Every structure is written in structure tokens, then in C-alpha cells.
């Protein structure tokens, strides 16, 4: 199975791919298109890749994880134009025990973000578009974290607004 997918990611298929009778735990991470980034309202996201390198590097990351832990790893990344709530990346890691499944799952998603040549172009609510540059967003992201911490202190309001957003969840 190739790493890059033009179709919606099939999480159940990924679970089936890594499952086996001896594996008692599956840790999964799914990265979804979020409606905000660095304080701006995002409407859509376009993913593109340097495909041959992305396939090679992702296969290497999977092999590294399977060498380091006794696990089986399934990994997919979506390409093309995605709406809010659509899955962009999915990692499923099955092992006999949960420790190794969690550790390997975390390793794979961090390495994918660090090493796989994929880019995203955000379209904002105001109609503008921009390539995402994570190296320029570090400052914005830490500011956003500060805001989230501040807002989580207003607990009642946060829960209420989170319930409201739930209604428009896309999956």
C-alpha cells in the first residue's frame, strides 16, 4: 500500500492492516484539518508532496519503528484539497502491549512531520491563501497555546462552546 492517498483515509482499513491475533493493543493517531491555525480561521487545506521521496522516507520511518519496537505500523497521508475535519494523516500501530504501541505511534507521527516532504496551502475565511511554513509559525503557535491556557481557565464557557462546535463536527 502506498503512503500517499488521493482518496479519503480509511482508518478501519488501516486497523485491519496492522491487526493480528498476537497483538493486543493498537495506538492510532489521526491528524485532521483544523478550523484555525496560528490565530487565523482556516476554510480548506491543499496538500501536495514530492511523491517519490515521501514514499521512500515514510517507508523508512515505518521500518525504523518496526525495528525499534515489536510492532506493526500502518501509515497514510492524504493529498489534494481537504475540508475542515477531514483526515490528513493516519498512523496505526499494533503491538502485544500498549507501551510499545504508544511509543512507536508517537515516534512515527513526529518523524513524518520532521522528515517527509509534504506541504500544505491554507485557504482562510477572508479568501486569501498561504503556504504553511512551520518554521515561521513557531512564535504564533506558542502565542496560541497561551490563549488556550487562558481560555481553559474560564471552564464553564469553554465546555459550552465546545458542545456547540460538536454539532458541526465533520467526519
Amino acid at each position, binding site marked *: 500500500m502506498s503512503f500517499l492517498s488521493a482518496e479519503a483515509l480509511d482508518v478501519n482499513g488501516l486497523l485491519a492492516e496492522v491487526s493480528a491475533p498476537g497483538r493486543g493493543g493498537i495506538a492510532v493517531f489521526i491528524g485532521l484539518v483544523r478550523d484555525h491555525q496560528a490565530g487565523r480561521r482556516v476554510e480548506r487545506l491543499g496538500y501536495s508532496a514530492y511523491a517519490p521521496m515521501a514514499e521512500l522516507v515514510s517507508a523508512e520511518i515505518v521500518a525504523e519503528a518496526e525495528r525499534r519496537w515489536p510492532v506493526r505500523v500502518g501509515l497514510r497521508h492524504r493529498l489534494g484539497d481537504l475540508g475542515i475535519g477531514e483526515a490528513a494523516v493516519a498512523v496505526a500501530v499494533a503491538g502485544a502491549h500498549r507501551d510499545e504501541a504508544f511509543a512507536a505511534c508517537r515516534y512515527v507521527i513526529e518523524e513524518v*512531520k520532521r522528515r517527509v516532504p509534504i506541504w500544505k496551502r491554507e485557504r482562510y475565511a477572508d479568501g486569501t491563501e498561504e503556504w504553511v511554513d512551520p518554521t515561521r509559525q513557531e512564535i504564533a503557535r506558542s502565542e496560541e497555546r497561551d490563549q488556550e491556557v487562558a481560555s481553559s481557565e474560564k471552564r464553564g464557557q469553554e465546555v459550552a462552546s465546545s458542545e456547540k462546535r460538536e454539532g458541526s463536527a465533520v467526519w
Partner: protein
Amino acid sequence: MPASPAVSPVIRVQLYARFADLLGASHVDVPASGPTTVADVLARIRSLPGGSAIGAGALVAVNLRQARPEQPVSPGDEVALLPPLAGG
């Protein structure tokens, strides 16, 4: 004896994402008449129109692997200039 028109050796550099937008092309050909490194290729591309906006976070891949500035590059290599990665 007239010299036959020499085919100058070039390194074809594929451009991705924002860098393709900046230079308005999917690839550029960099002359490589002598020994050439990743740093040489990058410097040459930065000197092209639009190339000055290529920042310090740019990566060069040679034959599908990230390459260091001092790595030599030859005309037969697959070379790509990559903006900071943003997958996931």
C-alpha cells in the same frame, strides 16, 4: 577546425510548493561545468528572479534524500529544492 557546439552540463532542480510559485517554474537548470555542491546549487537558484525569497529553512534533496550543503551534485542526480516541510 570548428568546435562542435558543446552541450553544457546542467543539474536539473525540481521546485516544490512555495518555491515553484516563487520562481514561477516546476524546475530550473543550473549550469554544472565543474564540481558542484548542494550549496552552489542553492546559491545559484537564490540569484534567479524570485529566488531571493528562498529562506534558511530550504532543504535540498539529492536522489530522494536530504543533502548537506557540502555534498557534491552531478548532472545525473535527481535534485529537488524543498520548502520547510509541513506534513501531518
